[in-house]
């Protein structure tokens, strides 16, 4: 461990009434990889945005090499030697690596001299043991190589403190390991490296020190030799006991409504995302999918709804094989979807209330006759939904994009529920909603399950999953780590499974007992 390069003291940052950071302290030393660990919304990015001059803190101090500094703009941060690699790279795809770096770091000289420029940058990257081809055009590079270009760019500009925002999120496991090797070399050469992450295993394997944020506060900080998966899990998910169950009335029958057998699927980058997923859901059951976002949840919900093909495996609903069925056929079989991006996949923001209601069944005889829409019925149903689900909006003719998130979600849910589905796939159904709307959404889902509808409930909030679900499956890196009856597990065990620990104990609940 080298000298203390950077110290953040009692940083507090609020947005309106939301406290993003409260009295957070962070010490970063030269020659170390410092991991900033926490769930989404724990305040990691806010803290780093304060450090890089994008946000100004309400209170608190920042010390660089022992001297107090004020970071009022990204430029101040750059001048202090603080550089950040964002999740979305700031690169020009059509320019060469050398041109990209030159664009960022050299502002003088009218004529370009590509040969000299490339030579300078090659020398620099070699001095840091970072291999990049300065003559290569950026769009031809892999994501991992592009990330390396971003790092060289910062180093060439003289950065001493490197911040990487979820650097492994866009990489394959192999690329991620290469990247951490690069970061280790950086640290060894005297730089300080801060890695924002929500993956506990990655942090345990690669960081020298770990600071855990939870709900905007610093929960724990430790050196690696003191860190264990248990300690990290407790710090990240908290210490509360979520045994309380919202489910008062259950109406679960033994027959299987939906099942997946050994399903595999690829993600948008054509890499294997879902690996050998098998589970089944009974009638009236709420089956939870826990896991850190980005571990295959999106692909799972898309595969079930018929928006993404499987590469192998089998999907069954009510005894019928739906593996190759279209999205519409699946809807007709009673599968409803509440997608995680409600304004992209769920609703059309520019269409009005009534039009959004009929999106999934505009051609049914209820809403159309001889090719013409029946506006009277659309209007009547819109009024019914408004009353039944207490949806607030400025009028049936206004685009739903103008409604609040909570009311949009109620509209979406009203539409999906009204088709009397057998299975509702709900992906993060209360994400971003206020407490009142979130409660209402959960109540609707609970009522549906009491009526005998099954629900696949995807969430990253463990307390919510424990409150709502009868069984919990845990996704990590596209694999199902195990399935538990909610009554026989605790948040700690689920947390460990979320971190990638496979638990094939006798407690395995392959189906509801």
């Amino acid at each position, binding site marked *: 461990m080298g000298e203390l390069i950077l110290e953040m003291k009692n940083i507090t940052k609020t947005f309106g009434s939301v406290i993003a950071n409260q009295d957070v302290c962070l010490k970063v030393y030269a020659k170390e990889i410092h991991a900033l660990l926490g769930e989404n919304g724990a305040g990691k990015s806010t803290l780093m945005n304060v450090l890089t001059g994008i946000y100004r803190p309400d209170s608190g101090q920042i010390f660089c090499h022992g001297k107090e500094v004020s970071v009022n703009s990204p430029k101040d941060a750059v001048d202090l030697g603080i550089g950040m690699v964002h999740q979305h790279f700031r690169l*020009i795809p059509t320019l060469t690596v050398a041109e990209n770096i030159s664009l960022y770091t050299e502002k003088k000289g009218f004529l370009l001299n590509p040969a000299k420029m490339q030579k300078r940058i090659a020398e620099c990257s070699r001095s840091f043991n970072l291999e990049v081809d300065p003559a290569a055009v950026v769009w031809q590079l892999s994501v991992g190589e592009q990330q390396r270009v971003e790092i060289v760019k910062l180093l060439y500009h003289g950065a001493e403190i490197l911040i990487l925002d979820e650097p492994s999120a866009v990489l394959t496991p192999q690329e991620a390991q290469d990247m951490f090797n690069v970061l280790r070399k950086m640290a060894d050469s005297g730089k300080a490296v801060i890695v924002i992450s929500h993956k506990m295993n990655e942090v345990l394997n690669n960081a020298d020190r770990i600071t855990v944020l939870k709900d905007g506060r610093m929960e724990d900080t430790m050196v690696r030799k003191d860190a264990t998966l248990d300690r990290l899990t407790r710090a990240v998910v908290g210490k509360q006991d979520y045994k309380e169950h919202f489910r008062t009335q259950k109406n679960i029958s033994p027959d299987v409504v939906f099942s997946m057998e050994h399903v595999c699927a690829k993600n948008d980058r054509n890499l294997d995302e879902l690996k050998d997923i098998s589970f089944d859901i009974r009638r009236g059951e709420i089956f939870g999918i826990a896991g850190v976002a980005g571990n295959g949840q999106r692909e799972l919900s898309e595969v079930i709804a018929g928006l993404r093909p499987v590469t192998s495996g089998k999907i069954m609903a009510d005894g019928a094989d739906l593996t190759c069925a279209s999205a519409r056929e699946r809807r007709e079989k009673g599968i409803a979807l509440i997608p995680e991006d409600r304004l992209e996949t769920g609703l059309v923001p520019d269409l009005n209330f009534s039009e959004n209601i009929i999106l999934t069944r505009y051609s049914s005889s209820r809403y159309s006759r001889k090719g013409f829409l029946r506006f009277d019925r659309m209007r009547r149903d819109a009024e019914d939904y408004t009353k039944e689900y207490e949806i607030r909006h400025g009028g049936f003719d206004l685009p739903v994009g103008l409604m609040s998130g909570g009311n949009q979600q109620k509209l979406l849910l009203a539409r999906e529920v009204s088709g009397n589905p057998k299975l509702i796939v709900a992906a993060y159904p209360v994400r971003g909603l206020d407490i009142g709307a979130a409660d209402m959404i959960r109540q609707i889902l609970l009522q549906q399950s009491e009526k005998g509808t099954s629900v696949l409930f995807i969430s990253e909030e463990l307390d919510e999953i424990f409150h709502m679900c009868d069984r919990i499956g845990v996704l990590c890196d596209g694999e199902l780590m195990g399935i538990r009856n909610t009554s026989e597990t605790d948040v700690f065990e689920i947390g460990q499974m979320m971190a990638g620990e496979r638990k094939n104990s006798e407690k395995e609940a392959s189906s509801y007992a």
Partner: protein
Amino acid sequence: MSSTLLISILSMAVLYAVSVLYGAVGEIFAEKAGVMNLGLEGIMLMGAVSGYLVAVNQKNLGLAMLTVVLVGAVLGLIFAFLTITLQADQTVAGMAMLTFSTGMSGFIGKSVSGVNANLAFEAISIPGLCRIPILGPVLFQQNILVYLMYFIIPLSVFYINHTRPGMILRALGENPAALDSAGYNVFALRYAYVVFGSVMTAVGGAFVSLAYTNFWSDGMTSGKGWIAFALVVFSSWNPLTAVFGGLLFGAISAIGVDIQTLFPAIPSQIFATLPYIATIIALVFTTGNFRNRRSAAPAALTIPYDREKR
């Protein structure tokens, strides 16, 4: 074919090419900066009429061109304000620009419609060079605006590919957010290139009224602005390729004129449509999925830059 006919066709082709190249090169710069201006035809008309008005009333070509440059700059500023500051849809703003300037040009040009200015950019022979067989009279017995284009083309290619501001321009239309975070003023740069593009286009219009056809009438650029616009795509945003495209269209159009006399039975309108048909064919082949588009169109073309939306 006699050599006089060949020379006549080729020098017509050069004139035609230059008349569309001013707009095309200007638009290449604007689009490389990420802003598409569909109103080229209208700006050309405004350039044509303002130049002609000053030429008729003041009998001074220098003053006429200065006016043209100013008119182009003002129109460019208006378009830049709409699309960059107000972040208006570029297609809609371009159409507004087109209808506004077309109508405006007809309105302010009423007094000189059909009036002879008795003043135009005359052809100047370059001593020595004009004696080269065929190429001499084609390339070196032209007016000064044609000679200016001979310098503009290599200079703009050099600027885009071999200078630092040119590199910044290439980045501007690809990923303005990256430039912003590196400390460049995306808005100012886009303004500059949009105004430059508009000025060039207006000069192209004045070329038509003061050097090419030497008169003014309503809508007299007859689609040259659109051909300039098509040329940008056709050339894959490369001024040098645009030259060949311009010459190709020019040759087709000139052949159309000359061939009419050989086939009096065929209506002249058929031949007059040739450059437009060629434009359509060229656009289909260059914009369709026939090749890797990645290398051509700037990725951020028509997308307003909004800092909050990173």
